[in-house]
């Protein structure tokens, strides 16, 4: 019963653990899932995005980010910054208002909710009476005007949200001032627009949905003038000098009305329907902006011809003779125009258009002719094609980093040179201590290289593997370039493109060697591409090799997809990673594991049928090994034969979900199930059941017939997919005897088998002359037969073997070859250490048998101490199927810490997790967002930024080039260092990551060091 005993409580170790491990979710990268509202503060130069799940995110200069979450899980409908303050008001779809503020604490700004408020009408009033449709923060900084569905405008005082009932502008009050002809049928209409006079804070404009617009005098409580249009009103824009208003309507027209208090204008000055004459959709929002040059900008959303372009999501910009309808691939949520913020300036002079679409944010430079887009430094649409895999590489050498950036910059020539216009706040975070790359593989056959060093996840380079293959889309490529003289003048913008030409192109595994610049990429149809970084464009043929993983196994038929047809002959590749070898597995099943050893110039790949080794120096296949169990028919037939069962299981799980929802609703609200005493009838449950729809009930009955049950059965050798190769690993170790070490390749399968091959790699000088050969040296069958998810060799000092070329580049000590090596095999259920070369079990940790969780991801990480500069330990970072993250010590396999990280139901989140080499990690919280977490006390990448309300600057808008004020240049030097690495600003090596660390007194350090030594001794 030893194993049930708790490990001894060692206070020194516990203290050390606190110095090594700490769990933090630090920052969310990517684009918010399901955005629902956009806000912008011209004075703070900060952008806010609200989501349907009640989150608000604020973005300023790169590195300046804030996130807040409403307690209610309701969609954010509107966001309004209060003029001249570090505060904002959000409106949720439950009609509640929330006041948030950025407060400075300890030198860093924090976003927090101060107050919340729901507008209540008198008892008995219809709910629509207080349903807020428009919010106007008044420039007096203490009043909020709230337009409602009933047509009344309520006034509340901030920050207390006190309703000033005497100032309410009721529709009846407005009616008194209107002439007879305007009064008819215009009583119960909702407020569509509320605007403050651009020059005179004593006047506000109220627009009602049926077409009436009035200007209200706040002091005199009277209508100054009114405008009556024949069409439903959608929105209003007030010219900067206040002399003109522009209204937009549901029929796709917009009208201009001159404002003067003495004459009442029955007819608009000018009315136009930009995409007429056929019926058009509504223009839902319009901006009318003046320029120094004279001609104004008209920017509006919608208004497209209903029949032919009604399904497009467009923002149109009209200026002078330039007219463009920016066409987005996803629904436009909202947009805003960045213009001169100084109220004293005579013209708007818009410089950028910011469009929040459902799946991405697009910023258009309005100053450069042609209106090119600006590349955002953050808010990247990670999911422009669905992410299929990810791979993280820590500590990239400067040389490779620069080459990747250079290759990427050539892909970005279509972007504007404008500086990122949203640049409020100051990032105080220290510059990232090292350069990290996150590589994401996508469904459309691309690999994206992201700068994951700091808070901003920035796209560096995009690699497409499609050119290697012949695809159906090639023929239609010429068709897409259509005539220029098209009306409406549509122009596609944005990168979101969820449609994959061919699912077989999807990337499944990526392996980058950061020292040599070799990259291996493997995909859905068994393709393995080897790529080399080349700074020049080149045209060459890709060597094609077929790897027959079934070898001479007879009588099997692959029913899955065909392999991809490769292009014959030379192909032109742009500068960057260029493919030179294509290995295609036969049968073309998805590649499930990949390993590259750049020192030996070997690449190993595995599928559900077996694995192979390829020598990319000599471009020759070394061997293939079939791992199939003869009875595993399912693996042989390919994925198609499983479609039915997948569908079935999906259906079942949906039913199950519904059932669990129903059953959970049966519980009385608020009380724990334990409080229900037996035998007492539960009125709640009865009510709920009758309230449930009939469909649900029948579903429930079906489920009662087949309850959720699980079969308890030991795994046998005959189970399906036992041959599925889960992991591949290269190691230079003692495979045959304890006196000679040699290169080796290790492969672990789904059925708990580990194969070890000893390799003979010729020395470098004869590398081209002699062949590499391999022979099987060992085969280990784990008796518990759980899938092998990780293999690792520890050297004589129990330290994981270094990566290839790491020692050659002097970045790691040579591994200890004197002491005996150990083999660590991680299966989904157990961690097991074996001695080498005689593979006898030495230690194990049974995870599943003890707690019922299974290993989903495992990675080796180096944990540095936050107290002692050069102290660190190597451990295993483990993610389980329950979403817990654990640290398991090496080599003794003692669980160190455990944190719950991901919800256990979030299967895709768990599947997407990657660990870095320094105790951080990433996982997808939505298709478009990575959550970054840290297990280490030392390596913490999180936003630290300051937004100072006292120093709200009177910005001049940035021009193209460097006409930025001197004060600003100082503030941004740090950012430009981290963003544009060309200057070599980044310090190589391990710079301290935490500011607080240097503040510790020396005595504390000494004490910690002594404990560390004591622990080791």
């Amino acid at each position: 019963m030893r194993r049930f005993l708790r490990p001894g409580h060692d206070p020194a170790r516990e203290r050390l653990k606190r110095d090594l491990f700490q769990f933090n979710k630090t920052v969310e990268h990517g684009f918010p899932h399901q955005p629902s509202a956009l806000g912008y503060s011209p004075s703070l130069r900060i952008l806010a995005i609200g989501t349907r799940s009640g989150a608000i995110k604020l973005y300023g200069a790169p590195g300046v980010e804030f996130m807040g979450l409403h307690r209610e899980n309701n969609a954010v409908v509107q966001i309004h910054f209060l003029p001249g303050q570090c505060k904002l008001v959000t409106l949720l779809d439950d009609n509640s208002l929330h006041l948030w503020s950025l407060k400075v604490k300890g030198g860093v700004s924090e976003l927090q909710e101060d107050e919340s408020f729901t507008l209540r009408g008198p008892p008995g009033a219809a709910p629509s009476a207080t349903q807020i449709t428009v919010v106007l923060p008044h420039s007096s900084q203490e009043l909020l005007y709230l337009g409602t569905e009933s047509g009344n405008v309520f006034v509340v005082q901030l920050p207390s949200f006190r309703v000033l009932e005497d100032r309410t502008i009721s529709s009846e009050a407005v009616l008194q001032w209107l002439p007879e002809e305007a009064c008819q049928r215009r009583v119960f209409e909702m407020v569509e627009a509320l605007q403050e006079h651009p020059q005179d804070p004593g006047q506000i404009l109220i627009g009602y949905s049926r077409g009436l617009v009035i200007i209200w005098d706040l002091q005199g409580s009277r209508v100054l003038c009114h405008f009556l249009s024949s069409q439903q009103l959608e929105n209003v824009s007030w010219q900067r000098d206040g002399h003109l208003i522009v209204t937009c309507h549901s029929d796709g027209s917009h009208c201009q009305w001159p404002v003067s208090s003495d004459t009442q204008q029955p007819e608009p000055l000018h009315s136009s329907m930009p995409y007429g004459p056929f019926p058009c959709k509504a223009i839902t929002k319009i901006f009318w902006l003046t320029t120094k040059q004279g001609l104004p900008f008209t920017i509006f959303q919608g208004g497209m011809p209903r029949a032919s372009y009604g399904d497009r999501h467009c923002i149109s910009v009209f200026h002078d003779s330039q007219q463009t309808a920016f066409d987005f691939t996803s629904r436009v949520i909202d947009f805003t125009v960045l213009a001169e913020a100084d109220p004293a300036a005579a013209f708007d002079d818009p410089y950028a258009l910011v469009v929040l679409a459902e799946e991405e944010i697009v910023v258009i430079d309005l100053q450069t002719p042609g209106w090119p887009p600006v590349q955002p430094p953050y808010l990247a649409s990670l999911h422009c094609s669905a992410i299929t895999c990810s791979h993280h590489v820590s500590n990239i050498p400067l040389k490779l980093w620069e080459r990747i950036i250079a290759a990427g910059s050539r892909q970005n020539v279509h972007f504007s040179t404008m500086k990122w216009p949203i640049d409020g706040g100051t990032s105080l975070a220290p510059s990232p201590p090292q350069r990290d790359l996150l590589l994401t593989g996508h469904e459309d056959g691309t690999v994206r290289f992201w700068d994951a060093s700091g808070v901003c996840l920035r796209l560096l380079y995009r690699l497409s593997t499609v050119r290697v293959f012949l695809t159906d889309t090639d023929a239609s490529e010429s068709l897409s370039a259509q005539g220029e003289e098209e009306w409406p003048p549509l122009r596609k913008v944005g990168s979101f493109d969820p449609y994959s030409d061919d699912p077989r192109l999807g990337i499944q595994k990526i392996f980058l060697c950061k020292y040599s610049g070799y990259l291996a990429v493997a995909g859905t149809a068994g393709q393995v591409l080897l790529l080399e970084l080349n700074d020049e464009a080149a045209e060459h043929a890709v060597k094609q090799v077929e790897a027959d993983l079934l070898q001479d196994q007879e009588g099997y038929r692959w029913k899955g997809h065909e392999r991809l047809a490769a292009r014959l002959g030379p192909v032109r590749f742009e500068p960057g990673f260029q493919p030179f070898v294509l290995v295609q597995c036969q049968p073309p099943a998805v590649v499930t594991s990949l390993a590259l050893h750049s020192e030996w110039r070997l690449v190993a790949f595995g599928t559900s049928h077996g694995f192979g080794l390829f020598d990319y120096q000599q471009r020759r296949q070394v061997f293939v090994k079939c791992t199939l169990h003869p009875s595993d028919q399912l693996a042989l037939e390919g994925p198609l034969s499983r479609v039915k069962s997948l569908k079935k299981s999906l259906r079942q799980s949906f039913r199950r979900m519904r059932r669990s929802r129903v059953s959970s609703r049966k519980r009385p609200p608020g009380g724990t199930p334990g409080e229900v005493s037996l035998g007492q009838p539960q009125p709640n449950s009865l009510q709920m059941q009758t309230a449930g729809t009939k469909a649900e009930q029948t579903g429930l009955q079906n489920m009662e017939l087949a309850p959720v049950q699980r079969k308890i059965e030991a795994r046998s050798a005959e189970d399906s997919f036992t041959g599925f190769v889960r992991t591949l690993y290269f190691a230079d170790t003692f495979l045959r005897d304890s006196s000679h070490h040699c290169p080796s390749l290790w492969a672990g399968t789904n059925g708990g088998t580990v194969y070890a091959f000893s390799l003979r790699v010729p020395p470098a000088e004869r590398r081209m002359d002699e062949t590499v050969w391999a022979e099987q040296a060992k085969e280990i069958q784990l008796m518990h037969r759980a899938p092998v998810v990780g293999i690792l060799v520890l050297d004589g000092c129990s330290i994981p073997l270094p990566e290839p070329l790491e020692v050659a580049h002097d970045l790691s000590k040579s591994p200890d070859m004197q002491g005996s090596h150990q083999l660590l095999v991680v299966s989904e259920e157990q961690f097991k250490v074996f001695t080498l070369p005689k593979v006898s079990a030495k230690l194990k940790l049974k995870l599943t048998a003890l707690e019922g969780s299974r290993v989903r991801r495992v990675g080796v990480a180096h944990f540095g101490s936050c107290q002692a500069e050069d102290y660190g330990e190597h451990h295993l970072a483990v993610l389980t199927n329950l979403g817990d993250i654990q640290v398991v010590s090496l080599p003794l396999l003692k669980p160190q810490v455990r944190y719950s990280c991901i919800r256990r139901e979030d299967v895709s989140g768990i599947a997407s997790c990657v660990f870095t080499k320094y105790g951080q990690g990433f996982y997808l919280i939505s298709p478009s967002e990575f959550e970054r977490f840290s297990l280490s006390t030392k390596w913490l990448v999180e936003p630290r930024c300051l937004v100072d309300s006292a120093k709200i600057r009177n910005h001049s808008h940035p021009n193209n080039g460097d006409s930025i004020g001197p004060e600003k240049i100082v503030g941004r030097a740090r950012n430009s260092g981290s963003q544009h690495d060309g200057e070599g600003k980044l310090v190589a090596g391990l710079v301290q990551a935490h500011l607080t660390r240097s503040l510790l007194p020396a005595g504390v350090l000494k004490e910690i060091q002594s404990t560390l030594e004591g622990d080791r001794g």
Partner: protein
Amino acid sequence: MNRSFHKSQTLRFYDCGAVEVKSKFGAEFRRFSLDRHKPGKFEDFYQLVVHTHHISNTEVTIGYADVHGDLLPINNDDNFCKAVSSANPLLRVFIQKREEADHYSFGAGTLSRKKKVLVTLRDEGLRRRAHLDISMPHDFRPVSSIIDVDILPETHRRVRLYRHGCEKPLGFYIRDGTSVRVTPHGLEKVPGIFISRMVPGGLAESTGLLAVNDEVLEVNGIEVAGKTLDQVTDMMIANSHNLIVTVKPANQRNNIVRSSRTSGSSGQSTDSAASHHSLLAHDLQNCHPDEMESDEEADIVIEGALEPQHIPKPQGAPSSTLSRANGTSLVDRLHRDLALHSSGRESNGSIHRLLSSLKSDPRNSLILPPGGVEEHGPAITL
């Protein structure tokens, strides 16, 4: 070796419905055949065996190796019939002089478990007495037992399932449910895990110790409270080689009967609880703590291509040679099969010891009846 010969011979006998018998006495082998469909009487078989071995004047016991490599006795018509019909395709028969024969040598793992010798010696006296009175429990492989009766509440039952060497599936299903607990605040409903179904013919059903709607409380000493159905499933499967489940049986009738007795006595009644008791008495002797700890099955390690002749030609297609390299060596094959049939109870070390003895003198291997070395056909399953 002469593999092809064996194979063809086997096939020929198989075709005409005959069972090839390989009988071993000491170091001597005899081969003969029997009709699979009409094996005849045990008495005749006994006469035949002693005749072929020319040991008519000695009292012998006869045993055979079953498909799991266990040595089982042949001493009546029924088990003789079973032995012949289950021979696949070869029937290996072992003969021992009766005075030498230890009646305890039959049973599960008898062909592979060597470390149990100590146990045998210690329990010898006790066992002989046990042998006299009732039946011969050692003729049977334990498949399940009730353990820890002395420390558990009487409403609970801790059942150990031995899947070791047994071809039967564990064979049960579990589900979510709610159970009622007595607490200081009264009765409370709490979620629980229940046995939902038994697979007919499965190990769980055949023991009779588990039943549908029994609540599962612990798996191998770990409480399942607060764990999800999937977690409990994973725990049970991870422990499936030696599964110990603590249940609260849905049928509490037997417990009430038992509690009315003075505790600790081995039952004399005729109800099922009593039979459990006798089983228990037997098994508890077997379950010394050492065995509880060594429940782990050892992993199989195969050293591939150690001999120089197996190194494939450096040029050409090394891949295909490689895959076959293992298959051709008898030592390797023996090793695999041994590993297969050793039922994983030994440590790796003992496998290696076995292997080295095999290598040094092939005839040595005859002492150990190697479970189906050549006969398993070309497909080697691991």
